[in-house]
């Protein structure tokens, strides 16, 4: 009986190998020469938060209104703080550089922001000079795959660092990971 099971297992294993070689299309979606590649960062770089003078908008994302201030996310990079006391003449006050930032919310003088999987708390009593007062690590579960489906991607490797984003690249060899 045991031998028979082993035999079945051997058949299944060999079938698995022959029916799904790495270069076959997965889910019927052929590899088109493009794939997503992880953008890595070290834990130290990820934790770096820099507060600077106003910076121009480059890739504005979500908005958060806390009268008279508008907070504008710079996709994946941080938060612009705008003084909107006069909506005809909004003033760009400051920029908080945060890796992996897309979201924020404000209560009283506290600004909450995501830093990939970390939740950051800033004291914005002086919106020109926000102060990082707390970091709650691993507050936000994150995925180790790109935010897209039906695409090929390079499998992340923990030894290379923390995945902070994904970039679409053209590559010659079909990656092993797909979703």
């Amino acid at each position, binding site marked *: 009986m045991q031998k028979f099971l082993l035999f079945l297992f051997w058949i299944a294993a060999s079938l698995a190998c022959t029916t799904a070689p790495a270069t076959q299309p997965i889910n019927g979606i052929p590899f088109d020469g493009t794939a997503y590649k992880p953008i890595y960062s070290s834990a130290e770089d990820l934790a770096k938060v820099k507060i600077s003078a106003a910076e121009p908008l480059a890739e504005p994302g979500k908005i958060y209104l806390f*009268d008279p201030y508008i907070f*504008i996310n710079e996709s994946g990079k941080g938060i612009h703080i705008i003084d909107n006391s006069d909506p005809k003449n909004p003033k760009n006050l400051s920029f908080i550089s945060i890796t992996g930032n897309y979201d924020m919310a404000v209560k009283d003088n506290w600004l*909450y922001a995501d830093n990939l999987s970390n939740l950051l708390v800033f004291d914005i009593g002086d919106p020109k000079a926000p102060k990082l007062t707390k970091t709650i690590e691993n507050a936000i579960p994150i*995925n180790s795959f790109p935010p897209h489906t039906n695409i090929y991607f390079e499998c992340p490797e923990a030894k290379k660092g923390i995945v902070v984003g994904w970039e679409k690249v053209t590559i010659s060899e079909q990656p092993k990971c797909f979703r």
Partner: protein
Amino acid sequence: MFQMMIHPLKNTTVMRELTTMKRKIVPILFLGLAVAGLLLILSSCESSDKSSDLSPQAGVGGSMARFAITGNTLYIVSKQSLEVYNITDGGSPVKAVKKNMNVGIETIFPYQSHLFIGANDGMYIYNNSNPNDPQLLSKFTHVQSCDPVVVQGKYAYVTLRSGALCRPGNTLSSLDVVDVSNPSNPAMVHSQVMSSPFGLGVSGNKLFICEGDQGFRVMDISNPILPVQKHFFAEIPSYDVIVRNKHLIITGKGGLFQYQFDQDDKYELLSKIPVL
């Protein structure tokens, strides 16, 4: 003597009048109290109807948000969960609860005592009467897509964006109107085709839809279940929008744009901070 006789009689008449007055006054008092109570209830309903922003000291996000604050609670949706933090002490958020969800969670929109969560496969409605422990009431399932949601009165407006990154295949993007008057049993009442919708905003009889690089759409929802297009501003590429008191704040590829609109549906550009 006659006088003496009449006096007690007079007294009793007075007494009777007093008691009848009492009989009249007491119901009037009760009625008055009831009316006052009703007015109070109605006015509180009205004021909470006006805005989705439940707590005066917190701000308000756009429909694309994954972070939301109501009162002393911070809600964060990750791709696969709802994370709830108590921020009574604003400087020290304390984890209250975590609700595991399916993968593909995108946005959160608090409205009155409910949380509307947009996901790749539908819209989840949580009751957050107990803010530190929201309860799942229902899930309105739709085709695979990217979909923020806003709510006003009985209706939720959900945009479903198709495209390689959101919805496989060639299905069209759409705007769905969902009756959420019974949050335990949401029902779709209308759907129409959109271009490439991202964030959306609702205020009074107006529904605003960010159509990505294609522009900005203004719809009339005087009939809330039948949005009718009023304007399409191709010159305003848009991603997220916040609408407050006839004031629009829009972000997009071009930067930050602010507009003022009036009753006659005229739009005046207040300012812009361009992308450099």
